[in-house]
């Protein structure tokens, strides 16, 4: 491409193409950020401003609503519980899910379709209906009101994501790559750890993100299965709907922030191995 000198018209097309490309990116960023910005404005507004019309588009930095939550008893413990449950969910769902994803991508075996449907069933049936028998089971086994118990339920929700995402990524890795490693003296296991595993870091990162946010935002099971050890959404989210507007927004904002911090922390792994050829 660069070897040939492009004619003027071609350059123009390229230029306008680049402009369009940039404009689209900016537009899509705005599309995502503007609603969040509105949430921020309302969070940082006094109750009067939240109800006023027309709405101001510049925050007035009234900390009243946030201060209310800062003083709300038990917020920090709930935050800690949420983080623990989310991390447990992440580890468990990948530990259980990734091997299954590998099996799905590398082998044809009897019952494969059935297994796949089983995995998906867990997302196609609403958890609030399952919560009753689960809670009975947990009370009887002593898992009730433990962070591990809640993490196990959240893992059930996150497993389809973990299995399917790792499956799709393993499927994207040429099997020849592994076979080449075998011929070079690797066992199936070492070929996997040395060749495949580094390649699917993005998939693990993506699964981790899903596991984390699924657990983070899950309210129903958290509300039913934890009493002393409430997580932040169980603590906050279910009361938001009935709370006054300014607290609704501030509470929503508080819930969003930790999830954003987490995604920010792992975002670069989504690109860890950008293109096999780039290594």
């Amino acid at each position, binding site marked *: *491409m660069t070897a040939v000198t492009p004619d003027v018209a071609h350059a123009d097309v390229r230029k306008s193409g680049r402009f369009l*490309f940039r404009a*689209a*990116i900016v537009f899509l*960023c705005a599309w995502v*950020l503007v*609603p*969040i910005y*509105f949430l921020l404005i*309302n969070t940082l507004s006094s109750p009067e401003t939240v109800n006023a*019309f027309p*709405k101001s*588009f510049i925050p007035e930095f009234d900390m009243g609503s946030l201060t209310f939550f800062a003083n709300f008893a038990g917020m920090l413990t709930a935050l800690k519980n949420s983080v623990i449950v989310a991390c447990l969910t992440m580890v468990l769902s990948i530990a259980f899910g990734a*091997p*299954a994803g590998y*099996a*799905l*991508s590398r*082998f044809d075996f009897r019952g494969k379709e059935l*297994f796949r449907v089983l995995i*998906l*069933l*867990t*997302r*196609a*049936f609403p958890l609030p*209906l*399952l919560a*009753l*028998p*689960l809670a009975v089971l947990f009370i009887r086994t002593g898992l009730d009101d433990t962070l591990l118990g809640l993490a196990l339920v959240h*893992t*059930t929700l996150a*497993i389809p994501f973990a299995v*399917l*995402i790792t*499956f*799709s*990524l393993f499927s*994207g890795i*040429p099997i020849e790559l592994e076979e080449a490693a075998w011929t070079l003296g690797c066992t*199936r296991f070492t070929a996997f750890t040395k060749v495949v595993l580094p*390649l699917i870091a*993005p998939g693990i990162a*993506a699964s981790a993100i899903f596991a984390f*946010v699924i657990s*983070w935002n899950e309210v129903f099971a958290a509300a039913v299965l934890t009493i002393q050890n409430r997580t932040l959404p169980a603590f906050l*989210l279910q009361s938001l709907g009935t709370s006054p507007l300014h607290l609704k*927004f501030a509470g*929503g904002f508080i*819930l969003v922030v930790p*999830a*954003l911090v987490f*995604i*920010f922390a792992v975002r*670069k792994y989504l690109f860890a191995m950008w*293109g*096999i*050829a*780039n290594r």
Partner: protein
Amino acid sequence: MNARTLPYLLILPVTLFLCVFFIYPFVLVAQLAFTQGDGFTLANFREVVGYWKFPISLKNTLLLAAIVVPIQLALSLAMATMVSKMEKGRDLVLYVWTIPLGISDLAAGIIWLAIFEQSGFLNSMMSGMGLIDKPISLLTYEHPWVIFIAIALAEIWRATAIMLVILVAGMGLIPKEYYEAAEVFGASPWKRFLKITLPMLRPSLQTALVLRVILAFEVFAVVIALGGSLFPVLMAETYAYQFDLLNSGAAAAIALIILAISIGFTLIILRLLRVPKGATI
């Protein structure tokens, strides 16, 4: 360990796990759908299907999925391609685009209601630009299509990132050599997208679509926030049976109907985007 037992060994842990934490409660609940008093019956199914709101809820749920999911697919493909073409600021842009992932559907409902309600941001903007001289009621029974658009926009905003992340992770695995070779042969960017990206991305596309479609049938909180009592969906009916009418049998029945629809669509997607065992060069 050979190739015959290995796959079963690999799926054993997750299967056992799901048997305890999903299949066991699921079977108990599913039983309820087929019992009333004692003995097997389809009365629960007849009851929920015969309710006058059922066809409306079904239509709304399917219509919403039919509009939202294709838009999200196109949008997330476009976004993933853009990200992969960027050199500077890729990290940051991708991060911004994945932000909605961290926002629960309840919170998303709150945010979008703040935009569309009568004294909300949209009216504020329009009145600031002089388009309207006083706030107008947008989410009303007088023009249901506005409600539909609002819900669709909120869903697109909230849930496109789910597909985006999966596609981005998948695109990262497509060898760059393919593109370079295609470029040498003078393939246009569109051709390259059609002939390389799409086929190579099939596993990720399949996963993203399946997950998104299933979630689309479970849509609830955002719809309730924006549609109020004007846009009934299946999941809202399920919860109404379970928690307002205390009719677990009927709730289980309608949940099974949703399940059947989800599985049906899943199988279609799996067939359409069949993924061969391991990619080959």
